[in-house]
């Protein structure tokens, strides 16, 4: 492998990592605050993809703009879902069977809605940008992937800032760290949960719409990404945005470079293998390793 090949792969992995991060943060915030593993994340990603698709087909809105529009739209959807279904679940400080199965049922419903509305044919979004490539010396970068990466990183950055700087963000972090103490100092758990759920679904929709610009999709679109998202949040230690960014990069690097060794049809097996390795070697994720180093230092 030449240096140029290596650099090309590295850049491809980096760009992929950005999308992976945006697709996983939604699951992380919901898990952090409510301890719900949102299996319906896959369903909302699929709907996000079709959202961008419809906007592009009907109103000729650029797919990236469509993805950004998906954010508020899915935020609304998320709050409605929270209000109608999720808030009736028994509250708990650890994931419950009931929450897992409820989100799973919701995923099945969303998937079926996808099949009813759009059928099971593969769709894709082809915009003028799809095939354009930027050349820098021996390195070539897909323009679209670069734009998607920038959008993804911007959104994750804004989320991180929101969590750091605002009262809402402080409430979220308080509930993640210690729900009881949070409530004692006046965090409105119900409201924070509702907003967090909306935010998580908004990120699912955004990620789905961004992914739709790069890959073809059908109503079963989210499933392979659900596993990846889970691998990423396990790598990232389950509850922090920076951990997720790190986990996303690790998975993207492993996936991209494993192409050199393993046939592409075994890609799903790679994320699973990585999950198993992480569970055995570092149960707290990569982030916990860094935290331990810091504590030792």
């Amino acid at each position, binding site marked *: 492998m030449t240096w140029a090949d290596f650099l090309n792969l590295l850049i491809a992995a980096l760009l992929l990592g950005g999308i992976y991060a945006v697709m996983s943060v939604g699951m992380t915030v919901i898990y952090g605050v409510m301890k719900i593993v949102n299996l319906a994340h896959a369903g909302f990603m699929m709907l996000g993809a079709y959202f961008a698709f419809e906007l592009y087909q009907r109103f000729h809105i650029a797919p990236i703009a469509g993805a950004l529009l998906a954010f508020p739209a899915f935020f609304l959807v998320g709050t409605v879902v929270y209000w109608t279904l999720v808030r009736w679940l028994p509250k708990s400080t650890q994931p419950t*069977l009931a929450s897992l*199965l409820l989100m799973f049922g919701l995923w099945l419903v969303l998937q079926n809605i996808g099949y009813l509305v759009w059928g099971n044919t593969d769709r894709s979004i082809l915009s003028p940008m799809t095939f354009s490539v930027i050349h820098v010396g021996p390195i070539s970068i897909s323009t679209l992937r670069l734009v998607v990466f920038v959008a993804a990183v911007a959104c994750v950055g804004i989320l991180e800032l929101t969590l750091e700087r605002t009262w809402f963000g402080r409430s979220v972090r308080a509930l993640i760290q210690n729900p009881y103490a949070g409530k004692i100092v006046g965090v409105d758990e119900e409201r924070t949960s509702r907003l967090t759920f909306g935010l998580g679904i908004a990120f699912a929709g955004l990620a789905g719409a961004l992914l739709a610009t790069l890959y073809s999709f059908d109503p079963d679109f989210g499933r392979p990404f659900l596993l990846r998202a889970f691998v990423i949040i396990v790598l990232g230690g389950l509850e922090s945005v920076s951990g997720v960014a790190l986990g996303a990069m690790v998975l993207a690097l492993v996936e991209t470079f494993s192409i050199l060794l393993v046939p592409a049809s075994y890609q799903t097996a790679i994320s699973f293998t990585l999950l198993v390795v992480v569970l055995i070697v570092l*149960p707290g994720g990569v982030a916990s390793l860094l935290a331990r180093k810091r504590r030792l230092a």
Partner: protein
Amino acid sequence: MKGGLGARIKLMLPWLALAALLLAPALGLGANLIRLLFITFVWVTTSLAWNLLGGFAGQVSFGFAVFYGLGAYTAALLIDAGISPYLSFFAAGAVAALGSFLVGLPTFRLRGPYFAIATIGVSEAVRVIADNLAITGGASGFRIVEKVPFRQLEHYYTALGLAALAVAVSLLIEHSKFGLGLVAIRHDEDAAADVGVNPYTYKLWAHAVAGALTGMAGGVFARYAAFIHPHGVFAFHTSVYILLMPVIGGIGTVLGAVLGGVIFGVVEEQLVAGFPQIHLLLYGSLLIFIILVEPDGIVGLFGRLWRRFSKEHVDTDVTGPRPDEILRGTGGA
């Protein structure tokens, strides 16, 4: 056990059902009805198997299709090679149990949602491998050539025997120290560990027994179907079905798992076959409804009706632990 009428009926129910089903073919049932019963027995077996791990121990798995598929392929390959079908079924169970250790050894090390999500990953990975494996015919499937005449009743009795075995195993486990240990793990892992129950090994063994039963069910099904392919036996929707049945019937109870399997078998084969385009919608809404409205499933619903209409206030505990804390409670998944 109290001597109430309800309690006595409940004790006799499995024997009555078994006797009726043993004699049923003699009444001259049509081939189609026999097929329906056969499929239902297979589903009941998988439902009971899932319930051992998901219901008793509270570990939700979305990956039982792995065992079903492993069993189906093992039996298919062996029968095709001319080995006795019954030996093949046991081999199918053994291979599936082995597979359960491969899945369980890493994933049971941690609590919480890890196991549940990892099982989605396992089923994806295994299906991808089955799609690409040459010995099993890859994605185009595998046809079993058995050089004996097709006797439907033999299949019927095999499946009935397997379902009876699954009921017996479930009841034995439920009333054993092992079963109590599993329930203790479901309630509180730390407390269970404190009283000498090792959650890790208990879960592993429950997983293995469940895997073996599911694998045997897969094998029995494969022999009947004579043609299997990865997108059938290894498909994600197979896992979904296996999980749905005990939840519909009443998670954590033997009676519930059986009822769920029977209802699902009949509904899936007779009703949903007519509306394939909305079956996910149907199952998804049913799941949501059960979780939010009647977490104890059909057993819970009947139990509530029974308590309302009977004056003797029968101790409903004769069939084992009440399921009501599983989906309502705040314990870990």
